[in-house]
């Protein structure tokens, strides 16, 4: 499945016999590839429809390949005073997907569904019990160090930054650890500092940063070596609204300008809506859904809610295709299918009732997923 970019890089690397040169050359050639690949997937993405399983066909070359991957943990449990029971836990139970270069994919599911286990296998920290994994042709568990130069990882709840030292010290360390050429390092750092608003924070010890500042600092740290893939595990968890907006805007631009492939896990539906063309839902270690966000709504038969404020109290509104879920004084809540347009409904309400104000509420991702499971 290796593309030409990879192959070329490997050949050069082989001739020069130097790991760093290999990686640098590799990345440089991939960068060019990434941009063309990106335009490609963009088109492929719109034509994909609700079928999911993108990238397996002609939608650009697959950067991440996951094929029948399982991860089984053995858990020992005390069942009596002396007896212990061995139990197998299937954290990931036969997952397959591919992600083409330049795509942004949301990876969602309830706690304990297997999201983090998948990410850990994709970074090479965990070896799969079965199945095949490749990132840019690299087997993560076997070539972890080589892979490390191609990926960036941000765990929302953990930090890679040097706790007691100023932020810029951690970046200096990254430069040496990833052997980033000086000019590239300076360019990337300037870009991150500008767009993530880190200018005033560079001299501040990391322990003094707020959560949002630290998160932006961590995202920058993960990008200085120009990774092809960025894994984000809950990148907006615990952030205030302003910080969330900054982080999302930055990720969007990163993806658009550099074609960086992004895989993110989140509990925040807005992260997915604003960033991802594609969403994968996992539960009990299995992939439940893989496709565009809109399709998720139709699969889950989710509903949007129209909140209307009338001039005065009124008996429950009755309109075809809706159901009134709540009445509270002059305010009423109307549920309607998420796939339907709100416009004709709004027009109808306005025509028949003394409408003062209204708003539309999007379905909650947890809700959508819960319905999806209930429907099975």
């Amino acid at each position, binding site marked *: 499945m290796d593309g030409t970019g990879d192959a070329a890089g490997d050949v050069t690397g082989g001739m020069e016999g130097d790991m760093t040169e290999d990686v640098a050359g590799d990345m440089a050639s991939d960068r060019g590839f990434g941009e063309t690949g990106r335009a490609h997937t963009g088109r492929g993405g719109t034509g994909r429809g609700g079928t999911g399983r993108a990238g397996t066909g002609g939608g650009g070359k697959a950067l991440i390949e996951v094929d029948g991957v399982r991860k089984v943990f053995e858990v020992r449990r005390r069942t009596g005073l002396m007896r212990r029971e061995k139990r197998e836990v299937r954290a990931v139970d036969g997952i397959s997907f591919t992600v083409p270069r330049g795509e942004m994919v949301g990876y969602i599911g309830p706690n304990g569904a297997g999201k983090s286990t998948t990410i850990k296998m994709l*970074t090479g920290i*965990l*070896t799969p019990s079965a199945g095949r994994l490749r990132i840019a042709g690299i087997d993560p568990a076997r070539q*972890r160090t080589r892979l*490390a130069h191609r990926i960036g990882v941000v765990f929302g709840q*953990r930090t*890679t930054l*040097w706790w007691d030292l100023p932020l810029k*010290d951690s970046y200096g*360390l990254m430069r040496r650890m990833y052997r980033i050429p000086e000019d590239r390092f300076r360019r990337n750092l300037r870009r991150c500092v500008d767009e993530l608003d880190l200018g005033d924070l560079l001299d501040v010890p990391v322990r003094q940063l707020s959560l949002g500042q630290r998160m932006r600092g961590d995202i920058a740290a993960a990008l200085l070596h120009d990774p092809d893939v960025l894994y984000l595990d809950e990148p907006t968890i615990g952030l205030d609204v302003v910080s969330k907006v900054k982080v999302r805007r930055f990720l969007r631009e990163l993806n658009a300008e550099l074609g960086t492939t992004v895989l993110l896990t989140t509990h925040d539906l807005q992260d997915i809506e604003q960033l991802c063309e594609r969403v994968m839902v996992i539960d009990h270690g299995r992939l439940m859904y893989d496709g565009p966000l809109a399709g998720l709504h139709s699969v889950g038969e989710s509903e949007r809610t129209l909140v209307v404020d009338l001039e005065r109290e009124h008996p429950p509104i009755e309109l075809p295709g809706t159901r009134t879920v709540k009445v509270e004084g002059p305010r009423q809540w109307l549920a309607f299918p998420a796939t339907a347009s709100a416009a004709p409904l709004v027009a109808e309400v306005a025509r028949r009732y003394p409408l003062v104000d209204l708003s539309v509420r999007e379905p909650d991702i947890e809700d959508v997923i819960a319905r999806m499971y209930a429907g099975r």
Partner: protein
Amino acid sequence: MRLHVPLWCAVAAGGFRRYATYTTATAAGVFTNTVFGFVIAYTYIALWEERPGLGGYDQAQALTFVWVSQALLATSGLMGGGFHEELQQRVRTGDIAVDLYRPADLQLWWLFTDLGRAAFQLLGRGVVPLAVGALAFELALPGDPVRWLLFLLSVLLGAVVSFAIRYLLGLAAFWLLDGSGVNLIATVVAIFFSGMLLPLSVFPGAFGEFVRLLPWAAMLQVPLDVLMGTQGAGGAGLVRALGFQLAWALTLLGLGRLAQSAATRKVVVQGG
């Protein structure tokens, strides 16, 4: 595996600056070491007046032992305060995952942060207590700069041995849920077998021979003998002393590597 010098210099420099930021802690440490220096110094004076020449040291040498041990206490991480509690905590909380996906070797990473720390504490917590001790008592410090350089080399080797032992303690967290038990045992063992409590040369017979062969001897007893020239006659004695330290350093680092690969295999297979 090729050593990536600029990276490891940066890591050590980071370790140094990390400890340098906590000036209050450093000042408190200097104060404690100095006070303890006086307490132990008077205990030793009492002891050496009863038994002159105990362990082959005269009183000035015994007092040198006291003050240099206080100066090296933090550097050699004899009473904890190093990195291994942090490593244990990272294992427990799962933060170790962040360390594992980086393209840097875990053992070397911690070795160089710890050497940076040791270097800071040699300067920050070593110089003042030793100077106070030298002003208050008559010490047997050498005037020959070569001796001092050899002493520093011996301190470095001792710090590596100390690191290697504590790295094993840190990795123990992969198997134990809580490291505080082993840490406590390790501290007690280190205080006694390094010579912190009494110089190891004091212990007679087979027991004395035995304790002087253990790795903890490399952390305090050997550097002090190198400094005072009591390591055994001439160049051969010096080579033997430093060779002893080097042998333990390499052995324990090797054990650390084995434990590390077992630990990562455990993580990789069983998850965190």
